[in-house]
């Protein structure tokens, strides 16, 4: 692969990394674990860039590496972590790699929907997904951890519904 092909590879990595990350999260919802797996996948991609055929779709190729890391991750933690059963994870992996709809639109819709939350609720979502623990959020807001979990669940559902509505509207127009 020459310099120009390497450049194309790099561009594909940058353009598609969020898809790979989301594929990993679909199989490993824990943020910290998913982050770790994403980093490992990125390293593997760069180690294997010379094997990449530019005529191939990048995302399935990259998700193949991610899938291997996910599989190894669950294998190593089989007895120490609450997880879906292995055959179900494989089913989800197959289905997740087949689904490519609305991937870019979803992030745009999410940003709009986040903007529709009250400032207080948006702040909870942002703090949590930026790395704050539920315990810290509870302390900060003089609330209980349980209440924060419930609030996060409600907000996640509200955002999910809002995104779905927007994507449906976008598709219709």
């Amino acid at each position: 692969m020459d310099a120009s092909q390497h450049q194309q590879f790099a561009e594909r990595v940058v353009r598609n990394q969020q898809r790979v990350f989301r594929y990993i999260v679909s199989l490993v919802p824990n943020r910290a674990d998913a982050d770790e797996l994403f980093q490992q996948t990125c390293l593997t991609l760069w180690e294997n860039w010379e094997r990449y055929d530019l005529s191939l779709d990048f995302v399935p190729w990259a998700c193949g590496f991610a899938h291997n890391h996910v599989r190894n991750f669950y294998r190593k933690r089989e007895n120490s972590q609450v997880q879906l059963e292995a055959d179900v994870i494989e089913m989800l992996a197959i289905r997740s790699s087949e689904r490519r709809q609305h991937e870019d639109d979803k992030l745009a819709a999410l940003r709009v929907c986040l903007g529709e939350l009250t400032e207080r609720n948006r702040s909870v979502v942002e703090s949590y997904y930026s790395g704050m623990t539920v315990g810290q959020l509870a302390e900060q807001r003089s609330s209980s951890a349980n209440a924060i979990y419930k609030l996060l669940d409600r907000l996640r559902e509200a955002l999910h519904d809002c995104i779905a509505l927007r994507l449906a509207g976008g598709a219709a127009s």
Partner: protein
Amino acid sequence: MSVSAKDLLEELRRLANRMADGTATSDDAARLSALLRERPELRDVYLDFVDTHAALCWEFRNQDHSLDMPRTGAVIVDSPRSPWASNWLPWAVAFVAAIVAVVTLLRPGALPDHEMALEVANDKPAARESISGEGFGQLARTSAVRWRDAALQIGDRLKAGRVKLAEGTAEFDFDNGVRMVLTGPAEIELRDAMHAWLHSGRVVFRVPPPATGFSLETKEAEIIDLGTVFGVEAGSQGGCLMQVYEGEVLASAKGEALEASPRRVLQGEAVRVNGGVHTTDFWPERFVRLLPGPDNPAGRGAYPYNVSQFDAVQIVPAPANITVDGDLSDWNLSGRFRTSCEPPYGENYHLEAAMMYDERQLYIGAHVGDPYPLRSQIRPTEPAARHGAGGAVALRISTDRQAGWPLTAVGDGERNGRPASPADLSDKLSFVVLWFCEPEQKACIHLRHGMDLHGVQVNPTGYQGVYRKDADGRGYTLEYTIPWQLLNAADDPPRAGDELAAMWLVHWSDPAGRNWQGQLIDVMKPNEPGWNFLRAATWGKAIYVGNP
């Protein structure tokens, strides 16, 4: 929808939420597995819902540096520079036992008395008193500092106690070779030459081999150096953030089970410690290491290590028969300007730049003060985002005669979900990076366009570039010509009287020519907030001067 189907969906969401929260029990996982196995139609519903969680993770994944470019982060782009990447994981796993053993030994009171490191690192009051009585270092340099409580002067001896810095940057040299760069606002408790507690703020430690084992604590973390340069931020939301520039450290979360901690963090890695040790993005610019000046982890490049002195650059007509040879003596230098980093570094880190034009091309000439000139090991085949990391000059240039100045184009992070406008994606807004690739002995260039930085071209046909190192090895001169065609302006190149936009940036590297160390940005629109990668309104004015 039937009631039972609705109930099923509610149950699925409840279980998916618990998976996302990390609160699912074994029973929850088993129930969810059964649902997904037996009801294929629920798999998409589940994946859809978890994808919302995934999108949120992604959206806020780089929150600490949300102004970074590109929005998608640069973990991948940075990865190739890590030579340990290929064997890090098995290596780390293989060393877990050793790591635990080392940390156990380094815990206060655990080392045998004859070990030098222990004598200094442990918490025995007698040892600390002895050191604090004599002092164990001194304040070496400052930049724009304001102290809280006790003001320190250059040369003041450092003793055990708290250092409170309201603002600015202060550099301390310990007698054992440790160098500490503290960026205010910060409060650090120095216990002795080998042990400190960071209460808040940002600090970078450079620890030479004799001081290996130096330890730093924060509310959330214990960090033990294994011969390295590392930066730590404490006291902010989300726990303690630590990243390693050179070597390696051990990081453990306080209160975490021993088997899960500590974690070995290697060069080029960053972690957030908050109940656990979690990987986060590594950004070289996150900490001030050598050069002084206000820095901000929230905005890569938002706060350069200099104060911009110029709001405009004059681009003057080029004389005929310019030879591109790294010697600017045949140039029209009437538009040149000189700028430098903040004292005391301005003497070594500075820029003298000039620009010329004719109907065919743009001329860029500069002399850069650089203690480690022309050492970049970054090859043109590496990802574009790495090209400037080993030392480079970069420019932002608009050739859009219709847009004029100031520009209104913005990047993705400034649009709040709005679609990009044609101005945002204009091919006539260029980002140009110029660097000398030492391994290939080549004057390189890369060009990208628009605020989305599309259309990467690396060393395209048509440009010329030559570098010349100073005789005393303390700087270099560069000379480039870039055809208007490469700046997408062949159809309508700038002409005398135009006032367009431009900005100059210089990146300095470490002696190895691979890691960013500091930068200078000049020719900026005064009082314009924001970052040049996201708001073209920050770019200064480029005045195309006509012949007299």
